[in-house]
């Protein structure tokens, strides 16, 4: 029901109203939904990744974690999956592949948050659970690259047809580089793949296919790195590729470049939200995990306070205390009584497990 309202709101271009906006859909952001949900607070989550789970899902889904209370061993992806199952009764709404952009405080005291996808939210509480920051594409530090971004240089393929009958330069050695090489070969006029070494971390099958294409001359595969870009205005015309040892230089003519260097984490626009920062971390109190701006909280790896430990379990604890404070802001006229899920019929009803 809530989802439907949100869809309508988004379609109409109007603001999505909720109790809590959570920035970041990693494990701590997810558990914040649980703690808020027990108090009957509705949550909307924003994340720049195209999937739920933050670092756990993006960086090390298969890695085992041994310090989650009561979980002797659990992989990072299992942790995310279980958290999703745990918060299901609270119907969180996710807004993925978009980064928070602006934040302003409205006259009624609520916050208005906008995203890079053009969505806007209004809520009395904002919770920043952004970990080490938003995942954004790694940009190669090439002189003038910003002039070409969005016209000749893309970090993701949105419209495949853009590249029909064009000369395309793909850079990188992971699955994205390989997959797009294989995908664009049939339509591109000429395709050049550049990677720093002869081995790839992509799927073996794709690597084999790529090598086969290179052998029969269907693509050019160059070992090395792009060191210079050439072009006029915002249009790329070519690039210089140098071997890692620097002894070999190739000039590649191209209309487009697709650099695939994976993602990096950065604080991004949050840095300009006027919050007190310490070495790129948000300072909070340890009673409510509130930032220097009342109503804005920071939990998990993104915050700092005396004695802070960057552990998922610390983030869980911070989420629980934050939720108590969030309730008072979101429901100023209601009295909060502390109850346990073991004994409270009301909480069990919210969880959908009441007899």
């Amino acid at each position, binding site marked *: 029901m809530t989802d439907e309202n949100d869809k309508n709101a988004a379609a109409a271009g109007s603001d999505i109203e909720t109790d809590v906006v959570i920035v970041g859909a990693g494990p701590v952001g997810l558990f914040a939904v649980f703690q808020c949900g027990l108090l009957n607070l509705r949550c909307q989550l924003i994340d720049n990744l195209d999937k739920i789970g933050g670092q756990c899902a993006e960086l090390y889904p298969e890695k085992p974690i041994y310090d989650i209370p009561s979980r002797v061993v659990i992989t990072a992806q299992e942790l995310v999956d279980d958290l999703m199952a745990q918060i299901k009764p609270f119907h969180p709404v996710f807004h993925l592949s978009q980064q928070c952009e602006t934040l302003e405080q409205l006259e009624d005291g609520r916050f208005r948050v906008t995203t890079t996808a053009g969505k806007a939210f209004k809520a009395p509480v904002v919770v920043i659970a952004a970990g080490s920051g938003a995942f954004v594409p*790694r940009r190669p*530090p090439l002189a003038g690259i910003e002039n070409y971004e969005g016209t000749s240089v893309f970090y993701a393929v949105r419209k495949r047809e853009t590249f029909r009958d064009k000369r395309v330069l793909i850079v990188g*050695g*992971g699955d994205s580089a390989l997959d797009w090489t294989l995908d664009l070969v049939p339509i591109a006029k000429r395709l050049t793949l550049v*990677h*720093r070494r002869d081995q790839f971390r992509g799927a073996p099958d794709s690597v084999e296919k790529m090598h086969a294409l290179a052998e029969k001359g269907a693509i050019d595969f160059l070992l090395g790195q792009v060191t210079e870009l050439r072009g006029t205005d915002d249009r790329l015309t070519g690039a210089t590729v140098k071997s*890692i040892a620097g002894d070999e230089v190739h000039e590649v003519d191209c209309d487009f470049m697709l650099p695939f*260097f994976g993602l990096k984490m950065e604080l991004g626009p949050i840095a300009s939200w006027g919050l007190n920062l310490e070495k790129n971390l948000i300072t909070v109190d340890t009673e409510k995990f509130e930032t220097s701006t009342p109503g804005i909280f920071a939990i998990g790896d993104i915050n700092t306070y005396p004695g802070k430990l960057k552990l998922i379990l610390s983030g869980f604890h911070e989420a629980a205390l934050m939720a108590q404070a969030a309730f008072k802001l979101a429901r100023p006229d209601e009295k909060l009584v502390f109850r346990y899920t073991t004994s409270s019929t009301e909480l069990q009803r919210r969880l959908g497990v009441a007899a």
Partner: protein
Amino acid sequence: MAHIYVTDHHGTEHRLDAVEGWRVMEIIREHGLPVGGGCGGACECATCHVYVDADWLPRLYPRHDEEEGALDRLYDAAETSRLSCQILYSADLAGLRLRLAPA
């Protein structure tokens, strides 16, 4: 005394006390130099990238596949590149020299 030499982004060399069994990334971070390590040493985020002095390179345990894969994501990966979270400090690395890669 156990120590390593680390050149920062400004070209200044620092002599850092080292602890056996610590990752070099942890040693650098402990001394307050900017070294990243966002993934907590999982060999994933590639933000603890360093260039190891060429003389020292052959004395290190070689890169494994996972580290190579992480280095693939770095534009400025060179032959002397290592992720400092993957170098475990031991007594035979006393005097190790390296330079922090651009952030």
